[in-house]
């Protein structure tokens, strides 16, 4: 589980661990990843932190290798890590901000998929790749325009890979959550009007809980119950974006 040191990644990691998974908290910083892994273990579930940079092939290779060594296999790869959600004007976007978005969301997805593949293939019908995208990857974004193409790229990857890996039994899906991540809460803090607008547009009138609202969707896709769902994006946002 990449990007599991906080936010959506942490929520999904907790939910998967609670359902019996051995979870690798692949976090960029030990300061965030280690406490998450420790608190999961304190609940009696299994987790370990492996410090991982998703933009580095070497780091991702090491993460996968350590996972195999520790747990004897890798059945479910979840890529959530993302950096670069700073508001900007598209006409002024520089290569640096583009790179941050591209490297974490898209290159990170590519490394997650290509490096996990031999193990997902070994897992056969239990093999899962789950990419965390966003409703913005479908509808575009006026505040963070470059966020949309990198999130859309993940959706296309899930569709094409689901067709390519389907004969092996591996499923590939996306989850598009809106939940109380530190990133979203930070944005609300800076812009209270945004919170009002987002909540008002949400059918259930509340922002999703990371572990208990988003986590179960990942658990479903990762489990045998989700074995006939592939190539899809499950929007989990309390009933806001309904464009699929």
């Amino acid at each position, binding site marked *: 589980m990449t990007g599991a040191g906080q936010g959506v990644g942490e929520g999904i990691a907790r939910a998967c661990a609670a359902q019996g998974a051995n979870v690798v908290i692949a976090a960029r910083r030990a300061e965030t990843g280690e406490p998450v892994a420790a608190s999961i273990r304190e609940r009696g579930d299994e987790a370990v932190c492996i410090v991982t940079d998703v933009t580095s*092939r070497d780091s991702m290779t090491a993460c996968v290798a350590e996972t195999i060594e520790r747990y004897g296999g890798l059945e479910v790869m979840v890529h959530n890590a993302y950096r670069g959600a700073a508001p900007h*004007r*598209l*006409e002024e*976007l520089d*290569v640096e901000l*583009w790179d941050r978005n*591209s490297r974490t969301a*898209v*290159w990170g997805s*590519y490394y997650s*998929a*290509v490096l996990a*593949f*031999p193990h997902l293939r070994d897992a056969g019908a239990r093999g899962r790749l789950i990419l965390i995208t966003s409703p913005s*990857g*479908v*509808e*575009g*974004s*006026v505040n963070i*325009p*470059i*966020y*949309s*193409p*990198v*999130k*859309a*790229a993940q*959706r*296309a*990857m*899930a*569709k*094409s*890979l*689901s*067709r*390519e*890996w389907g004969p092996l039994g591996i499923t590939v899906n996306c989850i598009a959550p809106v939940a109380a991540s530190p990133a979203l809460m930070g944005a609300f803090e800076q812009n209270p009007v945004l919170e009002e607008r987002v909540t008002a547009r949400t059918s259930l009138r509340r922002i999703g809980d990371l572990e208990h609202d988003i986590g179960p969707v990942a658990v479903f896709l990762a489990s045998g119950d989700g074995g006939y769902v592939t*190539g899809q994006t499950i929007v989990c946002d309390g009933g806001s974006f309904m*464009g*699929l």
Partner: protein
Amino acid sequence: MHRPLDGKRVVVTGTERDFGRELLDGVLGGGPSHASGIATSALETRAQVDVQLAAAAERARGPVDVVVHVAMPEVAFEAIDFAEVDDARWEAVWEGTMRPTLFVLQAAFREMQGRGGSIVLVTPTVSMSGAERLVPYTVAVEGQRLLAKSAARQWGPDGIRVNCVAPAPEHSAVGVESTAVSLAPPALGGPGDVVADIAPVVVWLASDAAHFVTGVTVCADGGVWMAP
């Protein structure tokens, strides 16, 4: 005479390939005051893009009103098992598509700022359907398609519209047929002729007739992909 692009200065990218060349021919049929093509190889860096757009404006004797972006690096069209994709290929297809597309949009913005204009990206339907052995290609095309939506949202107040036209996959060199992703045959027959069937959709989006249309993807595939 029907001249929906009367008075418009148009640039079409990716005209080194048949599709782009034929699209430029079709756009010329819309009666622009000027239209010219730019090859994909001339649009790799931001500096190159800026020089090419400025040169196009000079040729047209005024700022560009319409940019039709077809350009894509040749390597993107190669089908390959995902497990065989290496970093160099990912860089060439993903970054090699997205960065020039971003630079073209930014240069188009500068041409159109304060005056309005229309940008049309050609994004074959295969990015929406997905296709095996085409992960890099479909990822890049879908990235372009959402870049268009975000640009449409930000630049609408400037009168700049950004849309996509999605032809059948047969019009891309990726070797995928429409029947690979749909059990139904193309409702109108397919995959259609670039000049007669697809260019008119591009011309419409480029013209003032589509002045209230932005951020959309119009499938011009003869009626195959109908989602959502």
